[in-house]
């Protein structure tokens, strides 16, 4: 169960919050002074954004996570983990791979990190495969068409 883990899994980043909830988180950040808000408040808003269904909001969430990463050296390991998930969600697999590689080099024994890494790699593989399949499909299609064309010509 997800509740047993202290770090979110990819599935935790799926369900969007209600807009009102997101607005509360946003207001919390603004109330604490925007850029100078506490790490927790900004993280809450960022994570809320990443959970949302709009790609732009998700990107904004990743941007805020990046800020937190830059400003809070003590939270960097954690942040890399969230960043990986965020990037994964906005389909920036190159960035996700980059982050998770660094993270796993620092956390070789963490099961969750390794799981995440595996997922990212599988996803990349899957995406590449999709590309190859589409490419192959097109090639096959062209071959079929030309085959038919030639066959009809021979007749």
């Amino acid at each position: 169960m997800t509740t047993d883990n202290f770090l979110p899994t990819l599935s935790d980043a799926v369900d969007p919050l209600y807009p009102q909830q997101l607005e509360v988180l946003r207001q919390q950040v603004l109330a604490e002074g925007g850029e100078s808000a506490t790490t927790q408040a900004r993280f809450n808003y960022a994570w809320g954004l990443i959970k949302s269904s709009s790609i732009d909001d998700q990107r904004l969430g990743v941007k805020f996570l990046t800020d937190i990463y830059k400003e809070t050296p003590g939270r960097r390991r954690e942040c890399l983990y969230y960043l990986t998930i965020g990037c994964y969600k906005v389909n920036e697999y190159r960035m996700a791979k980059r982050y998770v590689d660094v993270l796993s080099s620092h956390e070789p024994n963490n099961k969750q990190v390794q799981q995440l890494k595996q997922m990212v790699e599988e996803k990349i593989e899957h995406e590449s495969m999709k590309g190859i399949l589409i490419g192959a499909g097109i090639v096959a299609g062209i071959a079929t068409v030309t085959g038919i064309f030639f066959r009809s010509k021979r007749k």
Partner: protein
Amino acid sequence: MSRNDSFSDFKKTISVTASALLNPRGISDSILSSHGQYEALLKDTLANDSVRGNALAKFKDRNLKLQNHGENTFQDIYSARNGASYFENSYIDKRSSFRILSYLNDDLLNDITDDKSDEVNHKKLLTDSDRDTAKNQLRPQDTPTLFDGFKATLTTDLKESDPTKRITNDSPQLQLESGEKVPQTTQENVPSEELEPSNIKQSTSINFLTDSFKSLLSTIDGLDIKKQNTAYEIEGLDSKMQHLKVRRDLMFNRVVDIEESQFDLESKLTLIRDRIEELKSMGIQPESTENSKTGNSSPILKSLDDSSTPLHSPIKPSLKRSESQYSEGVSETIDTSVQDDMSPQKNKQTDPLQLFFQPRNKKYRKTASTMQQYYPVGTKINSLDKCHDSSVSCIDFDVPFGILCTAGLDNHTVKVWDATKYKEVGHLEGHTASVTCMETDKDYNMLITGSKDATLKLWNIGTAALDYSNKDTDESDDTNILPSNCVHSFESHIDGVTAVSINSNTMVSGSQDRTIRIWDLHTGHCIETLDLNFSSITKTITDIQGSGFKPSGMLEGYSPHDLPITGGLQAYDVALATGTCDGIVRLWDLRSGDVVRTLTGHKDSITSLKFDTTNIITGSLDKSVKIWDLRMGALADSFTFESPVISVDFDAEKIVIANNETSLKVFDRTSRKHLYYGGDNQESLVESVRYQNGYAVEGRSDGTVNFWTV
């Protein structure tokens, strides 16, 4: 098809290719250059470096476009309600914009330090993996992750803002809410407010109670997480503050260093200026000396000294300019031929006062010290122990951290101090009785002192400091022969001088002979005399003498006759204010010599008076300080102390008071608070004080001088 069969072989090749393609280096190399617009801009700027303005103008135009597009400012968390507006700009698509904005460079990415706070997180992450199967229990010594904090926020803060209170089963926070569902009572949620003790006592439903119990437990857990995360944040801020404090100390020391070297250089500048003046007065032309081209004047000094004879007659102090400690090994004596050269000029300008008021004796300090601003308020910056053997009767300084002059009660000498280095730089000898009042000037390097010997003297502090520094190095010069730095002695009063005030080109003084005299500083003549033949004053004096008045503290040495008739006075333009022993403040018009207004209220002698554009502030032996409104001509404010007030100084923000107690009294005029500084030494009493721009100097009865930021 045959291609299908080889797919499994492809798989490995593909992932290798993919990982090569997705190599992090790829992003860092291409992140900026792969976006045409940025590249073009970059190239523009670089290529047009010679035509700088052009490139900048272009850049500006583009920037403007960037900002005008849409009403929102780019990259502003306040105005950007969502990601779309945040990343929107006219340059590139939102995805590229996002990638640029959230790009972490390699250095930053790999800079995951293993400092102490990080170690905690490190362990934390490791234990997380070990705890995969464990139940949700908090380890108080570990800082919860940000995600814990997020979940906690969901359970505590966001519950109320969930609009539908809909129960779903696929996310952790909603599960918690589902756990709160209480079918029996039709309540979906059990907010803690509804859990009144009475409700709990009256409730008969076990389920309701267990659910409430669980819900509260999770809320408490959530709050615990929030607490720990906030505590972690405080730790972070603490270390940041520590860091900033170290940096502040560093910067502060830098300011101190810079100011010191500034002062050093300025004093050298003054020396050079003096020397040039002197050389010019000797008739040496800049063109005739090849040495001047090298910018080094010491060869000239040496050549002069080579021909010098030990014969040294006192010359006019204002002209006697010589080398200081900065040009070492050079004797201060000036050869006789030089004096012969000067003699024609001596005839031209016989009056030393006129010689003194030359531009060269003007203060050449361009930098005002601002150091007092950087000390916390109420800091004792420094302390000079045993400046005088007796009580410090009067004190003055020109600018904060500038030149400080002090006079002791039993000593007829005035001492000059460098308030930056806290050392004695001069001795002014000439008075034949103790000095009772003094004032430094803003423009000239001068000090005016008034003494019980009925004279006022104008001193040249600049030459005094030079002579003092040369005294130790020069054996041939006996201190008796050392010329007095007294430029002029104003001798018209027939009794002790008790108060003095400089008013641009004139000076006013009050004396025990019951007169106020106005002097022209440039001629040295008394130009006006005001008599204080008021019945109240005469009556006060006879009363005191008759009753055997016993003054205390600083006034202990005074016989009743010595009680200052004019305790304080100040002139500005044609206006004069005096505070006298009858407790009355009089405002004079100097053109007619008449009293235009009297302010009554003090019940005893006024010892100190100062005014600015709006207020007159007086201190009196009746233990009170009164603030008078100049326009209304009435009392504006008054406060009373436990001892007689002796000395008062003020500006728009603070009033600083010396009242013969162990601590320095400061009244903050904006917050209307009384502050006491330095009352630890029971033996020494504050006798005199001067204040300027947050910087106060006080002299005490044991001869100590303290420097404060107030």
